[in-house]
């Protein structure tokens, strides 16, 4: 029974892989760029997925488009610009740094640093209080 289960799981996995579209790449480097773009471009239909990670029809279309452009020798920059011209900045999971995205890029660091300063001040203060307390005792 256990062997049957193992066998079925193996077969099923193989069937699952078979459904994934296959692209032929010229170089491993080209394939790596395809994967990377698939992670950085956002699916316009499904808010929280990248096109490389989504089963939506439009994601398949955009993957095909990325593939076509890569094959034609387009740079990553050109492919991203092509997508932005059509789907807006929304499609970039890693938007460029400019006035609109300043808070997005630096906000977390500012929050973190403010918190760190606060904690350091707190610790210093309590240390001072402690030393003072020792003197008193």
């Amino acid at each position, binding site marked *: 029974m256990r062997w049957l289960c193992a066998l079925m799981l193996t077969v099923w996995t193989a069937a699952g892989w078979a459904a994934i579209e296959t692209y032929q790449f010229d170089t491993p480097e080209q394939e790596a760029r395809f994967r990377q773009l698939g992670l950085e471009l956002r699916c*316009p*239909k499904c*808010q929280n997925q990248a096109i490389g990670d989504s089963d*939506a*029809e*439009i994601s398949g*279309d*955009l993957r095909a*488009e990325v593939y076509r452009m890569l094959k034609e020798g387009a740079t990553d920059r050109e492919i991203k610009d092509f997508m*932005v*011209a*059509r*789907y*807006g*900045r*929304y499609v970039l999971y890693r938007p460029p740094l400019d006035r609109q995205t300043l808070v997005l890029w630096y906000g977390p660091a500012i929050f973190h640093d403010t918190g760190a300063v606060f904690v350091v001040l707190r610790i210093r203060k309590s240390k001072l209080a402690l030393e003072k307390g020792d003197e008193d005792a």
Partner: protein
Amino acid sequence: MKRLSLWLPLAIFAILVGFFFRGLSLDPNAQPSALIGKPVPGFQLADLHTGETLTPADFPAEPFLLNVWASWCITCQVEHPYLTQIAEATMPVIGLNYKDTQSAAVNWLAKLGDPYTFHLFDPEGRMGLDLGVAGAPETFLVDGNGIIRARIQGEVNARVFDAEIRPILEEFRP
């Protein structure tokens, strides 16, 4: 000073509530189109019925709706009666038949009626891609100069038309 810092957590909480409250009334699926204010991208596509080549020069010289539809799209069927009304009473409606087969599309129109001025046939979705279409149905309001003024994702009905199309239409149509 001490008093002030006591209020700080409450202030932060209030700011967060403000953000979340605003978020409640935002539509998370709404995406601005990258093409508002820009001309309809150039194309050379076949007429769905006759097969003759159509270009942006064939667009009417008055405002019209460019409706992206397909026979496999259920919502397109839902909005079809309303678009028929628009085409008969308000303004021309031009179809962009998106990722469909010609026979299925023609059958669909034969069954439901064809109030469209004409249909661009885009079986591979190239034109859809250039328009930034994420899926059918989508509808663009195009002015008489071929400039895209508004984009609706999903069903167009009387409520959507009055809220999202009519105000923009009145802005540029005297």
